[in-house]
């Protein structure tokens, strides 16, 4: 079946450093990807999305890169802050109806 997987279950960075969270997906027909952030006790929070006709998209302090050739997605967070500590999910939209396929998530810890 369809799947997305993150490369590392945990990532620890120093405050102020840049963070990179990686993700691989299985379905080359997927054309829409979303990164969500989940803090403890809360629901997934939308961070940024990208469509397959793009290679890169930037938001506030975040950048998503999409490499369709190797079916790889990454989320870069600039100047990581303690408030960025959370579990990050790379999510694939499965079809026009919007079914989301979640990966396992990467837990980002930011050390002061």
């Amino acid at each position, binding site marked *: 079946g369809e799947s997305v997987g993150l490369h590392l279950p945990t990532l620890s960075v120093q405050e102020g450093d840049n963070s990179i969270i990686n993700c691989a997906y299985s379905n080359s027909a997927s054309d829409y990807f979303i990164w969500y952030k989940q803090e403890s006790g809360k*629901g997934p929070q939308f961070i940024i999305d990208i469509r397959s006709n793009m290679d890169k998209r930037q938001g506030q302090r975040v950048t998503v890169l999409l490499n369709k050739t190797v079916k790889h997605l990454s989320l870069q967070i600039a100047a990581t802050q303690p408030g960025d500590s959370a579990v990050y*999910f790379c999510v694939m939209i*499965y079809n026009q*109806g*919007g*079914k989301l396929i*979640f990966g396992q*998530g990467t837990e980002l810890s930011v050390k002061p």
Partner: protein
Amino acid sequence: EPEVTQTPSHQVTQMGQEVILRCVPISNHLYFYWYRQILGQKVEFLVSFYNNEISEKSEIFDDQFSVERPDGSNFTLKIRSTKLEDSAMYFCASSGGGGRQPQHFGDGTRLSIL
């Protein structure tokens, strides 16, 4: 900023009892979803709902599950006869554009089956 709200935040129910989880999606959204997350596992799709009918459902969403939009603002998930394995966080989400726009999630209902 508009948000999805879910009630209750925590529901404790005896096995075999019926439970209804409630959600108020973002007001101008047309696509509604339920997901669940068993402790320590990834978020799993349960069902999508559009135009007053189910668009898609997963294998988890068996005959014990149902969804309803009883009025213009609420979206509910009912489990008719709960099982121990139904214990999980249940998230409601809504979207303005199906597979073309991001879904916005509520903070979930923690369902504990005793």
